[in-house]
């Protein structure tokens, strides 16, 4: 009896599978072909770069799809040291670590006050922040250069926040991340219940304490999304450092990568270029694979608001 049942189940599964396959007509085949085509288009340029990163200079200038005779791992060593990718990478990490922390702290503070405390001028301040979403950054580029240059003349702290300083770039990143961060977090704080905070206030907690110990933990999902958004946005930023960091040893990763191919000219180390590209892509690939769900929702959440 039991064998009979299991046989029937197995058989019906098989039939179902056959049925499904029968229905997968030419249309379904085309569907898969289309999806596969785009997968190939997405993956192949990246894989090709990885492949070229272990080729020798001659092989890179030979047939595009030839395999390397030996794997040249020394390309990576040269990219790291001589092309200074290691230095640029470290610079990017330092800048983004500080700027995202600052962006989230200041952005959350401003958004919370604007979302929860009605006062005269509240709406005006909010609109001032949000209006920044519509301005093209290129309009501000020239004056921004001089603003940061003048910051360098401020007594005492000037040398740390002028042109060619990481702290200066951090402040600029924070300021330019405010519109989106405030816009999104203010909307998020408005959706949170007020009762918990009020209860804590009755128990004698200060406004500041309510913010840090009650509201911030409650706003976690929103904070995570916007943090991801800001990390990617600031990590990938090219325009602002291009204007504000002109000394090579201060450069961030995007500047370093762009420079290898634009300025290097004839004596460029092409093998190291591919290794450098690989070094820039791989960490993103790893981070993306681990956090892909959060990254996808973090980046698309803002658009759906």
């Amino acid at each position, binding site marked *: 009896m039991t064998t009979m049942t299991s046989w029937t189940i197995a058989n019906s599964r098989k039939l179902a599978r056959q049925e*499904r396959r029968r*229905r997968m*007509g030419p*249309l*379904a085949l085309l*569907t*898969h072909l*289309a*999806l596969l085509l*785009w*997968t190939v288009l*997405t993956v*192949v*340029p990246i894989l090709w*770069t990885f492949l070229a990163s272990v080729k020798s200079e001659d092989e890179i200038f*030979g*047939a*595009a*799809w030839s395999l390397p005779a030996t794997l040249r791992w020394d390309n990576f060593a040269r990219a790291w040291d001589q092309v200074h990718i290691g230095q640029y990478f470290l610079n990017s990490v330092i800048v983004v670590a500080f700027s995202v922390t600052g962006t989230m702290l200041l952005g959350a*503070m*401003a958004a919370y006050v604007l979302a929860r405390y009605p006062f005269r001028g509240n709406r005006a*301040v909010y609109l*001032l922040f949000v209006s*920044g979403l*519509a*301005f*093209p950054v*290129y*309009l*501000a*580029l*020239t*004056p*921004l250069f*001089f*603003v940061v240059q003048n910051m360098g003349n401020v007594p005492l702290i000037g040398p740390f926040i002028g042109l060619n300083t990481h702290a200066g770039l951090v*402040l*600029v990143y924070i*300021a330019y991340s*405010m519109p989106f961060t*405030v816009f999104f977090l203010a909307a998020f704080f408005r959706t949170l219940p007020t009762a918990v905070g009020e209860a804590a206030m009755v128990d004698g907690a200060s*406004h*500041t304490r309510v*913010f840090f110990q009650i509201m911030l933990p409650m706003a976690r999902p929103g904070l995570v999304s916007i943090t991801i958004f800001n990390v990617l946005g600031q990590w*990938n930023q*090219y*325009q602002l450092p*291009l204007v504000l960091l002109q000394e090579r040893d201060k450069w961030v990763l*995007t*500047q370093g990568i*762009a420079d290898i*191919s634009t300025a290097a000219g004839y004596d460029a180390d092409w093998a190291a*270029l591919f290794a450098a*590209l690989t070094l*820039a*892509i791989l960490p993103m690939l790893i981070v*993306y694979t681990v956090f892909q769900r959060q990254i*996808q929702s973090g980046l*698309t959440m803002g658009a*759906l608001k």
Partner: protein
Amino acid sequence: MFNTYRRGLFITAFLAAPVTLYLVYVISPYIQAFYIATTDWRGVSATPNFIGLDNFVRLFSDGIFWKAVTHNAALLVLLPLFTIVIALFFAFLLNVGSGGRGVAGVPGSKVYRVVFFFPQVLAVTVVAVLFQQVFRPDDSGMLNGPLMALGLSPISFLSDPGIAFWSVLGVMVWQAVGFYVVLFSAGLASIPRDMFEAAAIDGAGRVSLFFRITLPLLWDTVQVAWVYLGILALDVFAIVWVMTDQQGGPDYSTTVMATEIYRNAFEYFRFGYASALGVVMFFFTIGFAILSLRLSRRERIEY
């Protein structure tokens, strides 16, 4: 009374730093830009003189400026068009139109979504350098290698003025599609399944399922996508500056407003002229924003 005081203090303390930073680094440069646009400021040490609208007059008779505007305008139409059509197609296949009778997505749709989205997390500069290599003009190029192996003549993706613009557009679409596949998938997920199933039972094929159900219900998301991609098209800089020959060439065939602003300001040191260009760009962006807000006022389908 004391409570009101404490509340005021709290508000001030929390707003002071963000507002100050924002005023110094964002608002003040924008305001200064409008003033600088009316001067002949050149070079770091020179003193600016007020010249009224002369920069704008010169701008409008500048052939390169018009080339840049034309390219931005072409991107404004073509980038959203291609990206949205391709992304809608894939989002539909992944979520609704699996081919079989039911209304399920293709098997493995999650994997496809993860792969498609990946280019979005790469820096534009990385993508630009990568495709500069992919587009190499000889048989060492990823695309020209196979073409030449087949006996075809190589394509000058970046060195032919007639083709370079399309290469730029292609790379931008390549990078953007995955994001919009995910965005549209999220939109599709919020449409009740029964809607598709009811239509399918009533005999709707995949084509009418797409045009009669999917597209109307996703229309809001499509409009959001259009605005985002439009702004991306107006703001494009790094892909042109890093990937193309002569940073916007060959022969200005790929140049855009942002690259001309940067070139004028930081290579020719024509600060006034660059700012005037920036002001024009500002009005284009605002104009586009207002236009898209106007056009998107449309009755929402409730479900």
